[in-house]
């Protein structure tokens, strides 16, 4: 494992080969905003919020730092006018789907994003894939997955598996940035495996 030298926001940073830019930056104490990143999970590159500018041999390009491997002698800028503008637009687009997500509201404040810029289409899910990937990679239960694609893509619990596994786990619940996951679970549950009806109060 050879060390790789690079520069992030003017700071010289050392990284191991095979690390991603995001990991290198976090190791150096430089914060990059993320939504779909989770240290226990494989990089996903879904939310695009961790986008940064990479300068290499005089050329600059935009890369998604959570899936971009570190390279020798690159110069990385995690904040610039351009980056902030892109992040602002990404946040505004996500907020058309999940306007009340606390995570998004915090980030929107920092980047000056206007939650009402785009017409609302409240699907609540922002497709970060945290629940799907956590269930598959960490818990290996595969109780929740994506269905369909494009604008119709959504998460979907497999009722047979969810009925058995989810009640005792629910570890994906705090990961969800929008609380849509919890809603989807309750909906699946009430349609497919309703909880036993509360017993009527016994008559004394």
């Amino acid at each position: 494992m050879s060390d790789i030298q690079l520069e992030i926001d003017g700071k010289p940073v050392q990284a191991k080969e095979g690390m991603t830019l995001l990991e290198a930056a976090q190791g150096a104490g430089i914060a990059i905003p993320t939504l779909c990143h989770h240290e226990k999970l494989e990089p996903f590159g879904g939310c695009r919020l961790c986008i940064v500018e990479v300068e290499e041999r005089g050329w600059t390009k935009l890369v998604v730092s959570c899936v971009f491997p570190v390279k020798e002698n690159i110069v990385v800028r995690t904040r610039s006018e351009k980056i902030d503008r892109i992040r602002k637009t990404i946040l505004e687009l996500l907020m058309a789907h999940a306007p009340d997500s606390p995570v998004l509201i915090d980030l929107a404040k920092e980047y000056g994003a206007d939650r009402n810029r785009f017409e609302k289409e409240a699907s609540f899910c922002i497709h970060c894939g945290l629940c799907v990937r956590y269930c598959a990679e960490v818990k290996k239960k595969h109780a929740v997955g994506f269905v369909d694609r494009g604008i119709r893509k959504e998460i979907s619990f497999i009722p047979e598996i969810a009925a058995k596994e989810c009640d005792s786990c629910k570890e994906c619940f705090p990961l969800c940035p929008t609380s849509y996951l919890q809603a989807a679970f309750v909906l699946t549950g009430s349609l497919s495996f309703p909880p036993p009806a509360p017993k009527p109060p016994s008559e004394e």
Partner: protein
Amino acid sequence: MDNDRIDQIIEKHHGEPSSLIQVLLEIQSENHWLPKAALERVGEKLKVPYTRIQHIATFYKAFSLVPKGRHGIHICMGTACHVRGAGRILDAVQDRTGIKPGETDLDLKFSLETVNCLGCCALGPVMEVDGKAHGKMTPSQSAEVLKTYE
């Protein structure tokens, strides 16, 4: 579709999880749709989680999770066919079959779909039934063509 036939198809692909799409395509082409029991069988045999199968089966338009008719009608709505009156062909076919695009009739005779180009614009408007292209259609001709299918 019975489990033996599904097992045969899986056997043909040596039970490789990476052959999932090929297996699903073969089941789709023989059975015209993918019943849940078949998907579960495939998942069990190939050791692929059901969420992934469901993701793939809903991702590609080639797969159908609902029963399809014996004959698939594709009506081209591409630019060339459109200007030559594909809309009227579609109306005629909808009247004749009683189904809208994306639907299948109750006797499982026809499934109707619109497509954006069939690659033979000179023949427009084109209606394709079971892969056979019927070109230069008129609304009355399209009804005649459909009569020949049982």
